[in-house]
């Protein structure tokens, strides 16, 4: 899409031709700057280690080494376990999928209660929950260490699911609460008179209006949890690690003989799920953030 059609996005059209050229140039320069690391990783993921060592980190593949992907996936050694990244990808999925679903659903219920039931103290609860949005991750490390130890979930995927579900509530509650504010109170009143209770109103009236915000919340949570590194590396070791933590172990394992090709392939594979989510869900994300519940 050129700048000529930019009015569709609410940006006023630039009439002055030199100014438009300049804008194009700056935009392309910025895009290139953002893309360089991705391009380097993509190119290296199909170059052999020898080729990279003999030429340079940056270069067009001389021979396409597709085998890098197979090795990265299933037989590359990470900290003495030669299984490739496959089991760690599995770990990440086992953490990300349940934590995304749980935090989104709980956030929806919490947002619904806060925005549409207005129980005494709802403003306080909302304030406390959303405070979590602003707390740095590092601050929560020690409390979580204690909690995981006390509930016996240290070094387990379930422990990570617990952490991400609860941490995620801050964002999902905020998203859903703001979205549900556009649902008229009269709907809730009518349903109360009709005899529906808290959960029936949620399931039959609120949830069917929610897909836009649930998509936003799911995308946000999925990318956030999949890419999360600090908790993964702090609370799990060895075979329990999610992919982000395992990737670091992978660099450590090959410190003496750099395997940039395989490493790059592993990085690309690790980034694939969130990239796919972005490619397929990105437009729903933007749409959902700006949508109201009732048109």
């Amino acid at each position, binding site marked *: 899409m050129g700048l000529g059609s930019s009015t569709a996005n609410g940006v006023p059209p630039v009439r002055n031709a030199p100014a438009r050229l300049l804008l194009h140039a700056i935009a392309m320069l910025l895009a290139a700057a953002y893309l360089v690391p991705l391009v380097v990783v993509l190119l290296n993921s199909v170059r052999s280690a020898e080729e990279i060592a003999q030429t340079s980190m940056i270069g067009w593949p001389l021979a396409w080494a597709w085998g890098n992907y197979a090795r990265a996936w299933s037989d590359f050694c990470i900290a003495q376990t030669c299984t490739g990244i496959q089991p760690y990808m599995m770990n990440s999925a086992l953490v990300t999928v349940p934590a995304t679903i749980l935090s989104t659903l709980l956030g929806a219920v919490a947002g619904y209660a806060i925005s549409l039931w207005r129980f005494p103290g709802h403003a306080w609860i909302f304030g406390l929950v959303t405070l979590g949005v602003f707390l740095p991750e590092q601050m929560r490390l020690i409390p979580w260490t204690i909690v995981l130890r006390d509930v016996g979930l240290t070094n387990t995927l379930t422990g990570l699911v617990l952490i991400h579900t609860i941490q995620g509530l801050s964002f999902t509650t905020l998203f859903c609460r703001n979205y549900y504010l556009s649902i*008229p109170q*009269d*709907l809730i*009143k*009518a*349903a*109360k*008179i*009709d*005899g*529906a209770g808290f959960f*029936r109103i949620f399931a*039959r*009236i609120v949830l*069917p*209006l929610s897909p836009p915000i649930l998509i936003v919340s799911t995308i946000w949570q999925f990318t956030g949890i999949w890419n999360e590194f600090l908790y993964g590396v702090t609370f799990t070791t060895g075979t329990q690690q999610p992919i982000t933590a395992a990737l670091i172990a992978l660099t450590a394992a090959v410190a003496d003989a750099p395997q940039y090709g395989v490493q790059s392939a592993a990085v690309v594979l690790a980034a694939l799920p969130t990239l796919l989510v972005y490619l397929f869900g990105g437009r729903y994300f933007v749409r959902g953030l700006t949508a109201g519940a*009732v*048109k």
Partner: protein
Amino acid sequence: MAALAIRDVRKRFGTTEVLKGVGLEIENGEFTVIVGPSGCGKSTLLNIIAGLEKPTSGTVEIGGRIVNDVAPKDRDIAMVFQSYALYPSMTVRQNIVFGMECRNVPKPQRAEALARVARLLQIEPLLDRKPAQLSGGQRQRVAMGRALVRDPLLFLFDEPLSNLDAKLRVEMRMEIKQLHQRIGSTMVYVTHDQIEAMTMATRIAVMHQGEVQQFADPDTVYNRPANLFVAGFMGAPPMNIFPARVEAAPNGVQAIIGQGEDAVALALPDACAPHTGRTVMLGLRPECIAEEHRHAGHGLVLEAPVEMSEPTGAETIVVLRIGGERALARVAPDMRPGTGSRARFSLDMRRVCLFNPGTGMLLA
């Protein structure tokens, strides 16, 4: 037995008292309209009747049972909202049966009730549509259907016609009135539109600043308003109010409006005699001031300066001065006195109201 009894209901939000001791008793089968300007507390009162809000004090009785601690769903009521509040993701059919679904009414019974209401409101062709696919009037009908299907003890209407255009509003007004006549249920209807109140109600409760100003049948509210607020609120254009002095006259009592050479003496009915010597506010409906020959026999004819004429088609509204005070008259449509001219008017003094200028209460 009263279908609904409200006793000394007060409601406070923080420091503002929205309802200041409201009491109403509504008989079975009555169509009660609660009318008042926005912010008078009428919607809060309706929400309290429905159980959607709790009164700070006082009791609400529905069908002889105190329902203060009864949930809305167990009060045997149905409510129609201004916004219609149709569930957007459900079809018309699902909207109407949702209440029965929540109450686990058996399916054949649901279908039967749905068919009855759909026929009554003529919405059969709409049953499979979503609310977004309906026009304003159709949504209104569906909202009524959702209430009617329950066959409750009490129907509550919260300004149900204010989102409709003028023409549709008149049609729906008649429909609701006919519906009430046909099914004979007890209805409580909140509106800010005094025409709706006058046309539909069997009794009107006029509210202002959290208090019921008057609770009476439409004729009484219109002809004998309890105070100056009701006199000014009901009727469009509103009642003319003049400061006046009641004096003895050779053959009865008269009111003096204005001072000096503008002063006008108007003969008062004998009922006003006890107020002789008092300063009052005199109220006279615009239709009691008409062209010269309207009130043949009992009209009091007066020549007065005209400020402006407003022809509306069915009648002409004339702004004139009586004793120097501005007044509105409803005269025959063909009478168009020009600005600055003098014209002769006939005043029907039988329907005059006198108010206490201090308290605003009706004296006679």
